[in-house]
């Protein structure tokens, strides 16, 4: 039972049932008083009717007829009967079975004696009906009490039922809440224990718990992805840095031998600086991607005129492409805007153009297009080079992935990884397709403004 007091689920369920039972009790109390008052008024009305009837009898027919009427009524009524008494002007009891001292006129509580049922605590209406004659019509208080008792016992039964149902419901509801929450904490516990693939079970109902479970699972997937990424990066960094650092070391070592020759030494130092710059560039790219992936930059997003940016980049790149023996053609629809970071969007497009220039043979045709495609804005970079085999297309956005045939081309294998990170940051879809021949890379930006 200690589990029950410490369980929020049970506490909430019990509190709810208790509140419901309390509301029922309050309702019962209100009904009880309402019925008690209504019944009392009804009895008062009965006594008023009886009094005025007997008074009329007395005035029209005289005392004899009154006595006759009272006798008849006393003989006729049984359990819900009224009690009568008539006193003469001198205060003597002259008629009726009700035995008591002469009371003062008006409604009042009256204890009297009845030959059939003994002492009765009741309520009486006392009226002077003329000529100093005083009529007493009374009811037995037990009648009201009996009604009260009936109402109270009915309510006690009802509240008992409510409490019983409430407790049962609280146990069921509490148990249900505990079970659903237990599944979530179970999954969390499994993850803490080391099973990173553990997930919260999701039922088909799609209720609040399922929605929580779905968002928790999405969060876990994201964390899992980030951890995987981190692991990948640390091992890749270790691997990718080893090569240039080893080369640097060899170079410096051979530099020691050529200390006598100033020109040779100078060359060694210059290439060493170049190697160090490569390592630094690699670091800069890794940090930049890491920063993009935190999503913090989203706070400083502005409207970016993608059309103007793409045109400027195309104009800057066309001569460079020509110098490199390739051609760059572009077709850019005007006035297409997206929300984003200007610098990162430019770098993503530049990386795609750089890739197209590096991974195609001389004479290749490269295209840059920007157009509205349905609800989205589509930017595409195409080439007619060797393309990327379909099996490799999922891999090429990963960090440091360099396909076999591109091992000899310059680059550190982070270009597309940054494009993918920038796409994710802008909620854009990055996809790779076949240009027959060649590669087409598309970036679809959603929900844009024109």
């Amino acid at each position, binding site marked *: 039972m200690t589990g029950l007091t410490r369980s929020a689920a049970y506490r909430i369920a019990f509190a709810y049932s208790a509140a419901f039972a309390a509301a029922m009790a309050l309702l019962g109390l209100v009904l009880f008083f309402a019925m008690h008052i209504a019944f009392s008024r009804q009895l008062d009305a009965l006594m008023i009717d009886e009094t005025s009837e007997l008074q009329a009898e007395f005035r029209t027919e005289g005392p004899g007829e009154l006595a006759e009427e009272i006798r008849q009524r006393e003989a006729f009524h049984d359990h819900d009967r009224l009690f009568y008494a008539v006193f003469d002007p001198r205060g003597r009891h002259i008629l009726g079975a009700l035995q008591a001292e002469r009371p003062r006129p008006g409604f009042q509580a009256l204890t009297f004696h009845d030959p059939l049922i003994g002492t009765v605590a009741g309520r009486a209406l006392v009226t002077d009906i003329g000529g100093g004659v005083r009529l007493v019509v009374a009811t037995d208080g037990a009648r009201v009490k009996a009604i009260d008792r009936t109402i109270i016992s009915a309510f006690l039964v009802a509240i008992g039922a409510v409490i019983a149902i409430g407790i049962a419901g609280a146990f069921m509801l509490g148990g249900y809440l505990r079970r659903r929450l237990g599944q979530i904490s179970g999954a969390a516990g499994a993850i803490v224990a080391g099973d990173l693939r553990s997930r919260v079970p999701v039922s088909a109902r799609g209720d609040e718990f399922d929605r929580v479970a779905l968002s928790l699972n999405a969060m876990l997937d994201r964390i899992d992805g980030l951890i995987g990424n981190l692991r990948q990066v640390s091992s890749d960094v270790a691997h990718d840095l080893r090569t240039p650092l080893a080369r640097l070391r060899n170079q410096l070592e051979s530099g020691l031998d050529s200390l006598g020759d100033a020109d040779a030494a100078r060359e060694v130092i*210059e290439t060493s600086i170049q190697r160090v710059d490569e390592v*630094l*560039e690699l*670091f*800069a790219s890794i*940090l*930049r991607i890491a*920063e*993009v992936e935190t999503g*913090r*930059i989203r706070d*400083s997003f502005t409207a970016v005129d993608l059309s103007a940016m793409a045109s*400027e980049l195309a*104009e*800057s*790149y066309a*001569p*460079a*492409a020509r*110098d*490199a023996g390739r051609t760059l053609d572009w077709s850019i629809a005007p006035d297409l805007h997206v929300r984003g*970071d*200007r*610098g*990162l969007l*430019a*770098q993503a497009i*530049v*990386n795609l*153009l*750089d890739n197209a*220039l*590096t991974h195609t043979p001389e004479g290749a045709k490269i295209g840059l297009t920007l157009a509205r495609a349905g609800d989205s804005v589509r930017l595409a970079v195409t080439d007619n080079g060797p393309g990327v085999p379909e099996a490799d297309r999922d891999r090429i956005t990963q960090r440091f992935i360099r396909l076999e045939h591109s091992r000899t081309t*310059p*680059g550190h294998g982070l*270009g597309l990884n940054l494009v993918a990170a920038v796409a994710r940051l802008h909620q854009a879809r990055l996809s790779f397709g076949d240009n027959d021949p060649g590669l087409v890379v598309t970036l679809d930006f959603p929900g844009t403004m024109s």
Partner: protein
Amino acid sequence: MQILVAEDDADTSAFIAKGLSELGHLVLCVARGDDALHIATTEHCDVIVLDRMLPAMDGLTVLRRLRAAKIDTPVLLLTALGQIQDRVEGLEAGADDYLVKPFAFSELAARIAALGRRLPLSDVATEIEFGPLRMDLLKREVRRAGTLIALQPREFRLLEVLMRGGDRVVTRTMLLEQVWGFHFDPRTNIVETHMSRLRAKLNEGDAEDLIETLRRVGYRMRGI
């Protein structure tokens, strides 16, 4: 020029001071933020090289206080490797230029020279002259010894940045930033491509080359 270098790493500080002294500058080195603020407010400096991370008072705070005190000495902010947001913060705090560590000394020297020479007048000038070149910024026209040279907008901007630099070196990264707005280095050599086109147009008819290339450093206008 008198240059204040606020940098807490003794090696970096010595490296910068040595290089700048060799170029003929007078260098004051401090290692703490509060010292930097004190010297910057009490002594005349032409340029301040300010590290972002300094003991006692960080570089951005020093910069904000300087600007709040209406001291508008040009400030070159130094920062550790690559945070995009950092650059924005630095410029918003009032930095005139921004350089990421580690850097080539030639890059730092070129940027300090550019900052030291920055005159308010040159920003509103409508004409720039260098040797036989006249650039009309309103008409977007360039003439060499009176002959009109037709330039693409990008080439015009490239020449404008070079001419504003006068006979000082403008580095490749400075050109990428000021002409293309890139704060990264694209793999494709767009600077070289556009520079060779600009050069070919300027030097048409075997005229003497007005742009000098400094290997691994940058470019500068050559006085004839």
